[in-house]
């Protein structure tokens, strides 16, 4: 699933480790989400969207 997590994270000046610490996931999991190799669960997707102040469908795009 395509997403804008990398762009949003970079805009906030955060590293993957920083975002992982906020979301309670590993740096590798943040990387896997950003590259589209892993689709997060609904709770994690909501947590990511809320952290960036967006709705889930604004961050994650179903192709």
């Amino acid at each position, binding site marked *: 699933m395509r997403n804008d997590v990398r762009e949003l994270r970079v805009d906030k000046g955060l590293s993957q480790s920083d975002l992982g*610490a*906020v979301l*309670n996931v*590993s740096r590798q*999991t943040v990387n*896997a989400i950003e590259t589209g190799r*892993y689709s*997060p669960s609904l709770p994690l997707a909501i947590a990511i969207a809320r952290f960036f102040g967006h709705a889930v469908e604004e961050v994650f795009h179903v192709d």
Partner: protein
Amino acid sequence: MSTESRFARMCGSTRGRLMVVGLCFAMAAVFVGVSVARHHVGDGIWLGAIMAGYGLLLLFLSGRSESVALLASHEMDERRRGIDEFAAATAGRVIAAVLVTGFVVQLARGADTAVWANLCAVFGAVYIGAMLWGRRRS
């Protein structure tokens, strides 16, 4: 950034990793104890050293390698839990195939099948039990 969540994550990950490493050292001690009791001290030292070395590997490399982190249950999140469940399911399927093959081979040889049959029964009972438990939870 949430300091509390980072603290909670560190506590959880440290506990999980230390439990796995502690299990490795406990297994090393058991290997040494059993081998010494059977008067095979050399074997015991080798087996104990291998197991303790594995534990130290998990302890010191789990922060550097995700594969080692998975083996050590270090910083488990939903993706890592998914990988762990996939690996466990794959290993379980292979074990099931090995058990059934072993049972059939022993049957074809006309040898005693009790051990294989019992292992197959335990595997099947655990699988059915886990499936029923999983159904109740979801």
